């Protein structure tokens, strides 16, 4: 078995000879290891994958059409439902694109809180990935430990925004509201406990020989191919490309934080695993720095025609009340123009192309989902692997179908 798989990676002639006994296997859309409703058309010779054709669109909800019929501020709640493991990252990409069009300046405190939550969300997203990735490959216990950590983060998000998976916490011009009392202490408590949880995963998986043999040398994609396929995020860094938009195209003040960008050079499932594990530590580092920087201050930009006024102001000032009414009833006009803004989401480059025609509704909103692009490279990565390894490769890409299908 091992030799067949190895040979097939070396020479194409094995694949050609095997074509006579080809079998088609439809994997998904209800397969638990496809992380949602992904269907793969696998052409097999025995256990060997000759060709894989992804079939997507089962979860298509027409979000990009919907954006054109909603006001700018109403679009935020749609983005929550895209990559549902990283909603705050989606919120950030969307609101920053609109802010770029509006030329808004965001106050320091709002920026710090945005960074803080995006990094917490990144850890939460990686926890779901780690748990399900382990589950796919037969390691059941990490799943429970991972979801315990994620639960703590969701509780923090809930404390601030009231929502767990659909927070819609970031608004165009700032935040929905300020942090609740005692948030910093709760967050510190989580950060203090987190390294021990990471140790558990290292014990369960990183040093586990079964895990090594299931992940090392599987799903290889070279550095050049990774760039040509447009891979971003941990998948690209697992192929030895040192690229992180938080450092290379900084936004929200990321350039002032001290963190490392983990890069691995093995180009396989193991490398992508190690990148994400190391990223969790870096994210925790950034959250700690953000907590130290939390100083009292405004959380909304000074733009009364765009940002909803405080409730207290509305009771005292006539103009605040008028602004509130106008923003809610008619929305705000965004100057003509088009922008492409991208952030480093937990899965890679999340880009938003937004075009405004001067009215309160966008003319076009397009999301460049990292999962969508990363998945398109799957056929190249699984060619010549065993069926069981397809599951490992899908897990290592960390796809979310909500974002692929949009």
């Amino acid at each position, binding site marked *: 078995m091992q030799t067949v798989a190895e040979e097939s990676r070396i020479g194409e002639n094995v694949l050609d000879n095997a074509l006579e006994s080809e079998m088609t296997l439809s994997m998904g859309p209800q397969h638990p290891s496809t992380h949602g409703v992904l269907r793969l058309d696998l052409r097999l010779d025995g256990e060997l994958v000759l060709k894989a054709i992804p079939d*997507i*669109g089962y979860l*298509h909800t*027409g979000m*990009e*059409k*919907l954006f054109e*019929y909603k006001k700018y501020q109403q679009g935020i709640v749609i983005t929550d439902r895209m990559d549902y493991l990283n909603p705050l990252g989606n919120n950030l990409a969307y609101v920053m694109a609109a802010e*770029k*069009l509006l*030329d808004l300046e965001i106050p320091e405190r709002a920026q710090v809180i945005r960074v803080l939550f995006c990094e917490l969300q990144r850890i939460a997203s990686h926890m779901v990935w780690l748990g399900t990735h382990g589950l796919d490959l037969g390691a059941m216990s990490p799943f429970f430990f991972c979801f315990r950590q994620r639960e703590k983060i969701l509780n923090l998000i809930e404390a601030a925004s009231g929502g767990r998976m659909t927070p819609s916490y970031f608004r165009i011009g700032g935040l929905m509201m300020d942090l609740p009392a005692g948030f910093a202490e709760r967050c510190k408590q989580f950060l203090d406990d987190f390294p021990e949880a990471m140790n558990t995963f290292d014990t369960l998986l990183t040093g586990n020989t079964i895990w090594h043999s299931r992940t090392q040398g599987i799903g290889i994609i070279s550095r050049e*191919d990774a*760039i*040509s*396929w*447009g891979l971003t995020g941990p998948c690209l860094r697992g192929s030895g*490309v040192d*690229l992180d938009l938080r450092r*290379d*195209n900084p936004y929200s003040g990321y350039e002032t934080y001290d963190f490392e960008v983990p890069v691995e050079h093995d180009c396989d499932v193991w490398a992508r695993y190690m990148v994400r594990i190391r990223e969790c530590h870096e994210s925790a580092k950034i959250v700690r720095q953000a907590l130290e920087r939390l100083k009292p201050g405004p959380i909304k930009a000074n733009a009364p025609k765009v940002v909803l006024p405080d409730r207290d102001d509305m009771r005292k000032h006539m103009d605040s009340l008028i602004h509130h009414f106008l923003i809610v009833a008619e929305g705000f006009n965004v100057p003509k*123009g*088009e*922008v*492409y803004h*991208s952030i480093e989401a937990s899965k890679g*480059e999340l*880009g938003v*192309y937004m*075009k405004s025609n001067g009215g309160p509704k966008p*003319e*076009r909103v*397009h999301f*460049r989902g990292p999962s*969508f*692009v990363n998945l*398109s*490279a799957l056929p*190249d990565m699984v060619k010549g692997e065993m069926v069981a390894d397809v599951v490992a490769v899908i897990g290592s890409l960390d796809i979310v179908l909500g974002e692929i*299908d*949009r």
Partner: protein
Amino acid sequence: MTERLHAFVEKLREKNRDWVTDVVEGHGEVTVFVPKEHIVDACVFLRDEHQFDMLADLCGGDLGPEEEPRFAVNYHLFSTTHHNRLRLKVRLSEDDPHVATVTSVWKTANWHERETYDFFGIIFDGHPDLRRILLPSDFDGFALRKDYPLRGYEPYSLN
């Protein structure tokens, strides 16, 4: 920031004056309008000579049935070495929504172009596998065109 981007545009102009018909700057981004027959050459030139080795995004746009040319295809180029971004834009008329594919330049264009075809009906000549990607293969019409109604042509019913 934008000076560096304009330098790339100048390089494009120097190489071939026909490649650049217009340049628009806004919000720290530069958009280069490229005639559709030159888009592949311009992309290859930027990839090979100026390290724009990644196609970050490719998306379509519709200005509405009354506009001419009606459609636009945006190519968001990115470099993994010098981290600059450049937007190339191709305008297409409704009568002839054809443009050459860039899948030979960047593999990632494959799915992006399928998506653009799926939603706008823009045809990428030479694409290896131009099928619908997100909508079902028997879907009627192109959903993101401005004249396509939000709820589709069929009256809504649960049956």
